């Protein structure tokens, strides 16, 4: 059984959940584990449900999909509650936050929000008001867990967000942003471009327009050095485009990408979507993007690297070439983020940590792997 074979089954399942009906038991076990590792169990539940396929899945698959559907439903309720609390608190000092990424999808109720798993809530406020916003939240049981002076300086000087805040009782994590990429990268766009066409939800909360939300997701993925959740992010883009991809959406997305300087990232996203999930990018979009974009889409990074690094990072589908692609992305992400001398220093530290991990075990070298929320007390059993 080749790696590509299971990955092919996985992507087909996302594109057309009805293909799951004829899968054998062995395939389902592999796919359930791949979906679990990619945080996509809840997502497939909803896709299969909408496609009318869920009831025809074997009981084994139904049970695992249903289980994470329950979990994600609960998280969605939590996200709505947290967002309205944050909005009310910030509104009381005259700041109206815009909810980004997962929280934004859930508040809007877009298809890609169904079954979603969250690690935090992201909100955008004006740069000059970010510390006022932080202070206001501290009056409402949010706190900033202590970090080192170096990190504090790093955030204040270079970053597009302040250190994550945490709710004292509910343990929700909030990232307050004033931009979508760190100013140190030299690529932070005029944030007002993204704020055009903000959408007010029925609860009166603000979220980005579908093209702006899509662009943010693209920028987040393709300027990042870490593709661990890349496959999930790609499925996000796929579902956003499927749901919103009419003429005005594409016009908005193309224009926004150009104005903010992220056209190349858009091309990489479209090329990857086409290659990995066979998303039918409209010809008119390619025409609009022009010849250089076509070339970029056929180039080394788009064809050989991104598409490979975007498979789930699981040995079942991740072979030597995928590993290499992941390493290249890691280097590229850092390359773009930092000036060269800083980069060399940073990577030597990281390489040292890698060696350290190999010698002494990685639990001694890095933070424990992320576990699903609300399970921190489980080991009392």
């Amino acid at each position: 059984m080749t790696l590509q074979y299971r990955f092919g089954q996985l992507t087909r399942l996302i594109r057309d959940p009805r293909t799951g009906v004829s899968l054998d038991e062995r395939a389902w076990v592999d796919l359930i584990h791949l979906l679990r590792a990619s945080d996509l169990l809840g997502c497939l539940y909803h896709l299969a449900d909408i496609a009318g396929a869920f009831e025809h899945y074997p009981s084994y698959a139904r049970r695992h999909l249903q289980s994470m559907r329950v979990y994600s439903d609960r998280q969605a309720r939590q996200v709505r509650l947290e967002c309205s609390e944050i909005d009310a608190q910030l509104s009381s000092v005259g700041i109206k936050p815009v909810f980004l990424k997962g929280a934004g999808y859930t508040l809007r109720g877009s298809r890609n929000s169904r079954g979603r798993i969250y690690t935090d809530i992201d909100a955008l406020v004006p740069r000059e008001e970010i510390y006022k916003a932080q202070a206001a939240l501290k009056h409402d049981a949010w706190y900033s867990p202590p970090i080192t002076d170096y990190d504090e300086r790093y955030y204040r000087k270079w970053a597009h967000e302040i250190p994550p805040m945490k709710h004292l009782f509910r343990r929700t994590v909030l990232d307050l942003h004033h931009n979508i990429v760190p100013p140190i990268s030299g690529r932070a766009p005029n944030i007002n471009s993204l704020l055009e066409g903000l959408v007010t939800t029925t609860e009166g909360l603000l979220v980005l327009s579908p093209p702006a939300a899509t662009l943010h997701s693209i920028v987040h993925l393709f300027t990042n050095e870490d593709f661990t959740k890349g496959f999930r992010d790609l499925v996000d883009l796929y579902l956003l485009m499927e749901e919103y991809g009419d003429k005005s959406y594409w016009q908005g997305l193309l224009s926004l990408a150009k104005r903010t300087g992220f056209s190349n990232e858009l091309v990489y996203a479209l090329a990857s979507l086409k290659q990995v999930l066979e998303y039918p990018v409209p010809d008119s979009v390619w025409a609009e993007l022009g010849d250089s974009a076509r070339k970029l889409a056929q180039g080394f990074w788009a064809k050989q690297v991104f598409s490979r690094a975007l498979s789930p990072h699981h040995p079942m589908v991740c072979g030597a070439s995928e590993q290499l692609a992941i390493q290249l992305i890691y280097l590229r992400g850092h390359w773009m983020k930092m000036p060269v001398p800083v980069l060399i220093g940073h990577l030597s530290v990281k390489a040292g940590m890698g060696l350290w991990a190999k010698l002494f075990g990685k639990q001694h070298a890095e933070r424990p792997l992320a576990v699903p929320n609300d399970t921190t007390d489980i080991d009392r059993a």
Partner: protein
Amino acid sequence: MFVINSGEFLFEIQHLPAFVLRPLRAIYGDQPPEALDGPADFRVSLRCDSLVRRFLRPQITFYSDRQAPFKPVARSQAFATLEWGMNWCVAAYDYTRLIIHAAVLEKNGRALIFPAAPGSGKSTLSAYLAFNGWNLFSDEMAIIDLTTGKVAPVFRPMCLKNESIELVRGWYPNAVMTQIAHDTQKGDVAHLKALDWQKFKSLHKTPVVGVVFPQFRANAALTVKKMQQIETFRQLCSHAFNYNIVGRPAFDLIGRLTLDTDHYSVTYCDLAEVNGFLVEEFGE
């Protein structure tokens, strides 16, 4: 590859150090091949991550697929960390049933659940009852169907801690027990096989008729108090791993459990006295 069918879940152990095979075979070795045939709910491993540690005081890490929820432990704790890891898988990923941190014992088609804080003597009590006419459905987790309200038997060993290890070994010298793992986060532990597969296969999902909150106290006379409904409800909620995630169905089920069962808090020193009370109250 070693496979464990706990009744409700199938675990495939993809990788493990050879020395763990001995306790595994002792505890799970009587499962027939046909019981291990189904699709695996969780693929787990025990690995030695560190190169140095492979030779020097080796440490073992539990993995659920690619995820390592716990810190590495000493070699002697490998089997215990595997057991706790399997519990973690269930608690972290199953929201289709209500899962309460409790022991479950059954007699004559009537099940009792014993939710209790660590140190309350729950395991010692269950070990005693399990060898005195009750069937041990579970030592750690009551897995209750959200619709039928029935609790499922689980094919897993019980986890004895500290003094109760020698106590139970004294009562049942022939029982199958793993070697003691010293200095775990719960102190010294050993796992005790409380059911053979034949017996396990004869058990079925069973309605819950009682909730008992045990509290061991040295030299105490048996004291049985009927619990207030609101207190039972509160306790069951706080002992349920997934109450706040399952939400409404969990609320409804705990409500039904509270209304439809008898519930007691029991302070005891003499286990035989507790058994006497339970048989009288719930046995028939």
